[in-house]
């Protein structure tokens, strides 16, 4: 392994290990996701057809909100105890370290959220044929949320009232993902192909994965002075 790859793996494993030691915090985004999804049958009524028609939108809006709430844990504790500064001072390019942290964040929030969404889709009567497209949009879309969100967290880390501000900055940038993901799943409900939207989401993921880590690293450097 090259030193850069070793640093990448080290940061990734460190973040995952640290998170696994606070399992309660890991469950919080999932719990939040569950509660938001639960509100919709209560508000829309238990009618099967209504819920079925709204299931993709409900799941995606809840996933976007849960993702934006969980973003804070990406850099917060490292910022508070000073380890973020140490990471940035290390000789390894900070883009690599930032990318490792984003990937760790997705593994700890986006991936469980995707799995959990599969379960919840059953409770919202999503037809079996639409489950796979939902899975695809979540697998492609939630990493984009973590990537784009990382820029927002980096800009607001350590600010008073940062949480609310973070949501204001990040949610508008999440909207394109939401639009295409929900449109894709809705297409399958109408018997159309989902692949147009899947390709666009894949393109968004590639674009975000190439550009966002640089923006995040730059933002962190700005915030740390």
């Amino acid at each position, binding site marked *: 392994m090259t030193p850069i790859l070793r640093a990448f793996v080290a940061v990734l494993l460190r973040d995952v290990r640290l998170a696994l030691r606070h399992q309660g915090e890991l469950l919080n985004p999932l719990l939040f996701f569950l509660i938001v999804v639960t509100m919709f049958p209560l508000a829309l009524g238990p009618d099967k057809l209504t819920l079925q028609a709204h299931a993709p939108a409900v799941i995606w809006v809840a996933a976007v909100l849960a993702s934006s709430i969980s973003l804070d844990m990406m850099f917060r504790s490292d910022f508070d105890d000073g380890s973020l500064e140490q990471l940035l001072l290390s000789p390894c390019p900070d883009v690599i370290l930032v990318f490792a942290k984003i990937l760790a964040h997705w593994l700890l929030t986006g991936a469980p959220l995707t799995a959990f969404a599969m379960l919840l889709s059953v409770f919202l009567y999503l037809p079996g044929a639409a489950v796979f497209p939902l899975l695809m949009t979540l697998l492609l879309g939630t990493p984009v949320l973590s990537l*784009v969100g990382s*820029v*927002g967290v980096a*800009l*607001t880390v350590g*600010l*008073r*009232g*940062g949480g609310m*501000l973070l949501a*204001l*900055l990040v*949610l*508008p*940038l999440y*909207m*394109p993902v939401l*639009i295409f993901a929900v449109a894709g799943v809705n297409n399958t409900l109408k018997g159309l192909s989902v692949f147009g939207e899947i390709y666009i989401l894949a393109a968004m993921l590639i674009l975000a994965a190439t550009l*966002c880590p640089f*923006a995040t690293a*730059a*933002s962190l450097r*700005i*915030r740390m*002075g």
Partner: protein
Amino acid sequence: MFGQAIDKYAAPENAYTLAGRLAPWFGWVTMFLLLAGLWDSLFLAPADEEQGESYRIIFLHVPAAWMSMFVYVVMAGAGAVGLVWKVKLMDAVARASAPTGAIFTFLTLITGMLWGKPMWGTWWVWDARLTSELILLFLYLGYIALQAAIDDRRTAARAGAVLALVGVVNIPIIHYSVMWWNTLHQGPTIVRAEGPAIHISMLIPLLVMAIGFTTYYLAVLMQQVRCEILEQEKNSSWVRALAAGGK
């Protein structure tokens, strides 16, 4: 010679003086252009064959929409220059542009609604062009909120620059939304490969209004940049001398 001029006016004190000298000129040109443009668009331009008189809101709506995107690009570009080359003056330009851009975006949405009601029969549709313009408003407001949240002006300007650059992806989406998604909002009529699909009698007031909006932005920008420079340089001797009652 050009390089020397840039060096000279990148210095805050000289930029402050220059902006102060330019502002009234832009102001007067704006007043002339807007009065002429409004006269032309409200009285001289003919009524539209299909839309009658109510199409005339185009003379506010389209220039405002252009400006909403143009100002965002200026804001992001100035922010990028400030970020990369550490030009403080460009930080000031970026920060000062945000409120004006937000107002143009808001004006675009409002005039669009007023036009939509008689023509489409609805104030609002969730069409791609309208939605992406709304997202642009959110991006401006997020930028302004971020500026307000960070106390150190240097850090705020640089953080804002990154945010503005990330948000730039929305600009081509707004521009091409009417071609990519065929929804209620009409396609491009002016900036298109085959030449403008609008009669010259309507095109002239539209362009006059657009130039007037641009000079309005420049006039306001000059004043706001002056304020930004004063805030940035409040501990320097020339600002203190100014505050003490010097010229």
